[in-house]
């Protein structure tokens, strides 16, 4: 293993401030200068009574620089990480924080799962390691679901940033590890103890020296250690890159500038969100989403109260946490997947920053499935958590009918995980993220086969076949799975896989929406149901259905069929434009039967 941080890598593409180049004083109060000019600069932005009086050009330029620091950190991480979940599914976040752990900026392009979690995690770190104990070169890490992101495969890491010997900021990265030991790739666990190795806040490095005990412990607990450790190093280098650039930024503009800048942006974003909330009518709007759950159905009850420029979401009435099945959700994840759909419909354009969420108050009763307590199993929290988006859209539909979309068949993410040996008796494992169809809106059909609210993708079938003994006989849109409506939901998929392993293989299915498909809106029909079953096989199973959430053994040569859900439709099917019905029929998105019986093609033709 190579421990040294690569200096060149860390300084890649950065601008080294040179006195000659940076000694620039901008006119008209718009000044960019060296630290020796910091006093002048400070007087510029503190002279006005409110600190929000930055000028729009300076703000734009400096804010972009800050984001680009987080983005370069992300680029470094993505380039060097092994986990395909990081690389292809953007399952990571890079965050710049102030000395208190409050967020300054985060990278663009990440999935919503990590919104707001890094800051909370660093505050836990600060409780364990008080500010005066941090030293340059320290790296602290945890995968505690309650301090972090809600399940153990996600590791949150932070490094301190020092300027003139003083702790001034933190850089942090969250990334999904390729393995964490235990039976993590399944939804049927009974407690968090089955879900892999737990790492409380601990130093991975102390003043640049690796904590060999911790490394040894992690290596011992995971199936293939190299990629896992490799990903940790990618995270460390990503944090270092951000730290160095943050130091350059502060050398140029000062620490005060950094914090004021972020506060300024956040208060502007806060105002924009409040203006958006003000535009919608006051009142309380409720919606309940029903899910299959692990062994009994669960309800997500969501009441949204709009009061002036504030918005409260209350999940009172939501089902209790469950004793078996990792479908419990910790509060941080509930928060992330409640704020995400709100931002999509209220203020999608503002660049992601925490100010946007200040007008929200999100309540989930402790002990409910959306605020699960230790040590409940939580590894498949997405199966419940993703569906919060459907509850939020459903509640807002009466007041924002043209902005929300109908429930999506791709919500929650359908995951299948195959493991066993290939034809040469070499072990293989393959994780497949399967997409359903997106919900329709009041003006457009839903997108076929598209992840929502996450953005994880399966990669190429050809590549999957080259690294496993699987043969995909079919991966195609499933006709009639898009919920009928004036605007049709996106179609789900029909996937048929043969397992050509010489030995018995294991399949873990993590899915939802078998009994309660994605609902339509305003008279639109529900999308098609998801499923998993054995098909033509020489072994004649007793029960053709595979478990919706759980593990099952597959005999050599067995063929299985996985079906993802379709998106809900919007508006009544009989209002759909006839040309579009004909077009859908010609393209095979709908069958003749559906065209006739659901859309009434014949009657409307003759009429």
């Amino acid at each position, binding site marked *: *293993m*190579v421990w040294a941080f690569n200096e*060149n*890598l860390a300084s*890649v*593409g950065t*601008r080294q401030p040179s006195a000659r180049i940076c000694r*620039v*004083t*901008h*006119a*008209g109060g*718009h000044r960019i200068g060296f630290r020796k000019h910091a006093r002048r600069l400070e007087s510029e932005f503190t002279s006005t009574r409110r600190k929000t009086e930055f000028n*729009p*050009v300076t703000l*734009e330029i400096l804010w*972009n*620089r800050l984001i*680009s620091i987080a*983005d370069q950190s992300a680029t*470094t991480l993505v380039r*060097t990480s*092994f986990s*395909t979940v990081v*690389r292809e599914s953007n399952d990571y976040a890079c965050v710049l924080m102030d000395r208190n752990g409050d967020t300054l900026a985060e990278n663009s392009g*990440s999935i919503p799962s990590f919104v707001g979690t890094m800051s909370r995690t660093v505050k836990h770190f600060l409780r364990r390691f008080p500010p005066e104990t941090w030293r340059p070169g320290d790296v602290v890490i945890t995968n505690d679901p309650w301090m972090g992101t809600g399940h153990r495969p996600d590791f949150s890491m932070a490094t301190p940033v020092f300027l003139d010997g003083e702790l001034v900021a933190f850089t942090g990265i969250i990334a999904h590890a*390729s393995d964490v030991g235990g039976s993590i790739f399944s939804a049927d666990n009974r407690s968090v103890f089955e879900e892999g190795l737990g790492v409380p806040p601990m130093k991975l490095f102390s003043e640049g020296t690796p904590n060999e005990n911790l490394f040894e412990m992690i290596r011992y607990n995971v199936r293939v250690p*190299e*990629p896992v450790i490799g990903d940790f190093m990618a995270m460390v*280098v990503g944090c270092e890159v951000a730290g160095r650039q943050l130091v350059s930024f502060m050398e140029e503009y000062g620490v005060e500038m950094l914090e004021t800048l972020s506060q300024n942006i956040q208060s*502007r974003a806060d105002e*924009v969100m409040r203006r958006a909330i003000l535009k919608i009518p006051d009142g309380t709007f409720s919606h309940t989403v029903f899910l299959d759950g692990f062994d009994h159905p669960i309800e997500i009850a969501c009441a949204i109260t709009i009061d002036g420029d504030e918005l409260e979401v209350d999940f009172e009435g939501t089902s209790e946490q469950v004793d078996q099945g990792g479908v419990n959700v910790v509060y941080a994840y509930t928060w992330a997947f409640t704020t995400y759909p709100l*931002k999509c419909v209220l*203020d999608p*354009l503002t660049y992601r920053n925490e100010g946007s969420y200040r007008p929200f108050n999100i309540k989930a009763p402790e002990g409910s499935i959306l605020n699960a307590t230790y040590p409940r199993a939580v590894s498949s929290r997405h199966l419940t958590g993703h569906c919060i988006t459907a509850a939020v859209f459903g509640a807002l539909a009466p007041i924002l009918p043209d902005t*929300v979309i109908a429930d999506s068949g791709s919500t929650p993410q359908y995951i299948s995980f195959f493991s066993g040996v290939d034809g040469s008796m070499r072990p293989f494992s393959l994780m497949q993220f399967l*997409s359903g169809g997106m919900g329709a809106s009041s*003006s*457009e059909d839903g*997108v076929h086969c*598209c992840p929502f609210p996450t953005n994880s*993708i*399966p990669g*190429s*079938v*050809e*590549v999957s*076949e*080259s*690294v496993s003994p699987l*043969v995909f006989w*079919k*991966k*195609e*849109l499933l006709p009639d799975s898009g919920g009928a409506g004036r605007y049709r939901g996106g179609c789900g998929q029909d996937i*048929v896989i043969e397992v050509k392993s010489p030995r018995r293989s294991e399949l873990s299915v993590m899915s939802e929406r078998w009994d309660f498909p994605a609902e339509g809106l305003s008279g639109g029909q529900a999308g098609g149901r998801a499923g998993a079953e054995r098909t033509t096989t020489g072994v004649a199973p007793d029960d053709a259905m595979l478990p919706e959430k759980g593990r099952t053994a597959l005999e050599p040569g067995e063929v299985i069929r996985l079906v993802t859900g379709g998106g809900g439709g919007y508006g009544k099917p009989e209002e759909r434009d006839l040309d579009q019905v004909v077009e859908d029929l*010609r*393209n*095979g*998105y709908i069958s003749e039967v559906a065209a006739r019986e659901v859309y009434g093609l014949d009657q409307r033709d003759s009429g």
Partner: protein
Amino acid sequence: MPDVRLGVDVGGTFTDFVAFNPETGSFSVGKTLTTPHDLALGIIQGTREAAERSGFAVKDISQVTYGTTHVANLMLERKGVRVGLIATEGFRDVLETGTEQRYDMYDLTARRAEPLVPRNLRRTISERMSWDGKVLLPLDLASLDPILATFAEYGVETIAVALMHSYRNPSHERTIRKYLRNRYPEYSVSLSSEVAPEVREYPRTSTTVANAYVDPPLRKHLTEMASGLKSLGFGGVIYMMLSEGGITTLEAARSFPVRLVESGPAAGAMAAAYYGEAIGHRELLSFDMGGTTAKLCLINGGKPSRTTEIEVAREHRFKKGSGLILKVPAIDMIEIGAGGGSIAYVDSLGLMKVGPQSAGADPGPACYGLGGFEPTVSDADLVLGLLNPGYFLGGQMALDPDSASRAIEDRLARPMGMSVIRAAQGIHEVVNENMATAARMHAAEQGLDIRASALVAFGGAGPIHSYGVAKLLGLNRVICPLGAGVMSSIGMLVAPKSFASVQSYISQLDSVDWDHVNGIFKTMESAAMELITAAGVEAADIKIERSADMRYVGQGFEIVVPVPNGELGPELLETLEAAFSSTYQSLFGRILSDVPVETITWRMSASEPPPRTDIRFLKSELTTQTGEVKGERPLFLIEEGRFVDCPVFDRYGLEPGATVDGPAIVEERESTVFVGPEARCTIDERLNLVMSLG
């Protein structure tokens, strides 16, 4: 008999011509309006004019090198022909579902680019190959007839065939083509195993369909152009510029039209590399800023960086993921929505943004006086004194400073509560910042440190922003070649004859079937040699470069690793492992032990040595007296926060050896160089303006 070489670059608005006589070194440039409805017409007229103007006959032209935006435009404007796609049963929707990924996390209405073939024309056939090329299910040829009946019914003009794992075993695709040739000779056929023989079904299918989509119209256009030039008396050879930065024969280009998609911009980067090399700079950042976009390309060791995949025709013009993926060898460029016409506005947070929306050419920036009222980058540059209202395009178009000021005042200055000058300064700075940030990110993605690079600035708006961008990136040298407006045409004269090929073959490195790999290289290399020698290059002069896409087993992405020439065998295992490790180390700063390495795709590029073209503008281009100062005008200097009277030089009056100290302006017909206060320029013997900062 003179041996004149002509470079022709057909762009959206203008068609550029550069005529070069290697014997006399004479060199001349021209521009005509592009004739979108009959591109060949404009080329033929322009060629005649170029000849007349420069005093040679069309029959004296020995070589025409042609680059065009035609292919890209056909895809962007969806003006190709109706394609029928034949795919493997069970995989009808590969083209439509694409990567499945959303390209905008917060926009619920974001939609994928519409596939080039609608679902009813995507038909499947019973057959299946395994990943290692074995037949899992035989081909059912009989089912082709009903498919062809459907195609006929819907007026399909050309057919694409993209079957699973055909890169590994193309026999089913070939059998289909043979059958179609016999039974349905009216259709041209594009096979995925020939257009893009690489693993990953979506990019391969997408590339094959795109190839089919542009094939008939491009064929027609090239035939018309060739016969038009012939009728003028042209008896030389026509070469086509490829996206990868090389040129090839008309015949070869016709076989894979999709590979012409980025020919114009690629030629610009080749020209930048050429000029840098001539000055002794091999580390460069090519910076081409035009009316709507800026294109950046990193040039490392004298070579523009290459990529194996590009995205075109983006639904949301600059959003990655919203376009069509093409697997073609290409020069790696980033395109930013930042050009002279980019519109500045105040966003929801009250911050000033610039681009990517553009005022285009019509109505264009407010200062064009054609009805545009949105403030643009050019408007800001005019208000700051950087542009000369009376010498835009050499004086062909008068600019109106009042309209520019008014647009900035109405849309920006008043809403933001600042002066017009301050707002204009803001536009200039924000657009520079955007380009610098993009360059930094691009360098970081490739693991390159660009701080020692020189910036090569061209395009209508490049030289005016080069000083600001170089400063932000900490670069201390800027090269502004003469002829900023025709760099792509110049690139066509300096690009080598070359051809690249690829073939996927997935295997762990320690169990590679070397006979198979040797066969792959032999096939690719003999085809490329044949092409290049047919263009008059001696076989001995052709240089072959091999590489392989490799990765650690279990990783989802590959890196490109150099592979030795000649016969390969197991004895090279260590060499290849070492090559992989050192490439991996240099990219990512570390390597892993105990993780096996696998190879995914084998690549080959054959090229003649760079042509020894010695392009230099002659002193005869200088039309005014040495060092003549055209005058003085007030420039707003950001560093000083006020207008300062600065000298204005005529580029055509600056002889080799002349120096210009900033702050100053140097004007040429199609662009303006802003020499900042911390810069000093010298004119070199090729009449390049070389600026040193700091």
